[in-house]
């Protein structure tokens, strides 16, 4: 079998162009984690199920374990590390997950928040049911999802400029 040459791939990640000389078989998750130390997206299954590796790519939520980095050449990627505001203040989703106990062990959280971000971009005022279907590609084993749904609902209100309601228990 031939030993194909490495290729230079450049991807705009969190607003910065990041490059690496990589084999074509390098997956996007490894490009991020191993070549650029962006370890927020996690590896939970490597089989496109758990969603822990979710990042935003050109306005779509993708599981970065099932995409070769070469496929993302020239794309704009946002990871959890790029979610906070420039001044370091948290994105409303990040703040809501922390405040409403939308996390326990935290391993699924970066993928969950990144996915919720795209969901709210597309549907700024989702029902609980739409939230649940919208995060069906992200497994959380700790929370039972109730507080994740609550956090996303609350963040949607903040992002819409509505006064924050204390979610009913």
């Amino acid at each position, binding site marked *: 079998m031939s030993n194909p040459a490495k290729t230079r791939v450049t991807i705009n990640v969190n607003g910065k162009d990041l490059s690496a000389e990589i084999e074509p078989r390098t997956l996007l998750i490894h490009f991020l984690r191993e070549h650029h130390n962006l370890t927020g997206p996690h590896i939970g299954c490597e089989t496109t199920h758990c969603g822990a590796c*979710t990042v935003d790519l050109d306005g779509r939520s993708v599981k970065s374990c099932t995409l070769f980095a070469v496929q993302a050449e020239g794309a704009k990627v946002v990871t959890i590390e790029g979610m906070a505001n420039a001044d370091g203040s948290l994105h409303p989703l990040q703040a809501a997950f922390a405040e409403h106990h939308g996390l326990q062990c935290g391993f699924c959280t970066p993928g969950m928040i990144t996915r919720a971000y795209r969901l709210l971009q597309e549907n700024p005022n989702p029902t609980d049911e739409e939230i649940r279907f919208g995060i069906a590609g992200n497994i959380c084993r700790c929370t039972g999802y109730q507080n994740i749904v609550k956090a996303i609902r609350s963040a949607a209100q903040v992002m819409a400029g509505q006064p924050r309601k204390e979610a009913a228990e």
Partner: protein
Amino acid sequence: MIPGRFTYHRPGSVGEAVKLLASLGEEARPLAGGHSLIPMMKLRLAQPEHLVDLGKLGLKGIRAEGADIVLGAITTQAEIIDSALLRERAPILQEAAQVIADPQVRYQGTIGGNVANGDPGNDMPGLMLCLDARYSLTGANGSRQVAARDFYEAAFFTKLQPGEILTEIRFAAPAAGHGWAYEKLKRKIGDYAVAAAAVVLTMSGGKCNGASIALTNVAQTPLLAADAAKALIGTAVDDAAIDAAAKAAIAISDPTTDTRGPVEYRRSVLGVMVRRAIARAKTRAR
């Protein structure tokens, strides 16, 4: 979970792509959304030496051409769900796309990949049978059209020849006022169907004057349930007709016992899916 090594190609046109595939021969595989192929490569169940990325061939998009609806092969499930044209003219595709996998996969998974790889678990092939779609297959020797109803030979075996790319899907939009439904029973969200049924029908004067029914994941290939559809024609789509259709559908099914349940269960719930899909399609027909 590391795929084998390969050389990556990103042609800029269909012509270039088929030329590449022809010259690289059997060691090359086309790459669309990659959500079937990449997992197989990680498991080393597929070890192509070359991947030809179809992402930049201009095969995206959904358009109307006269009475036909045309879908570019690289159109994603998410784009299908968002399409105003499909909402108007062929909403059954949206109903089906919404029960495929999960949101992330739907952004990446393509209609072409879903119908071309011959996986009996995929949902869209059944829809294509139901809608009597035609596939445009392009190879080094030019293009040809194959009816979806002729395309599937066995699990993972189709009429697609090595070196050919499925570029386009085309079907006549169902008549205005048609009723439709895709009913899918799955073990849980994101899963392949235990059994699923696609129904498109038209009613006139309280009687059914056109019907098409197809079945997913109850045989080696998707199945067109012609006798089931026939059982509805000329009837008021009453309980007796629906029962007859369900029986006809079950009769042609050939599911296997697997982690989705024993054969008798899968047959029985296939009947339920067919009944529910017909009943819902009827309420939507005008």
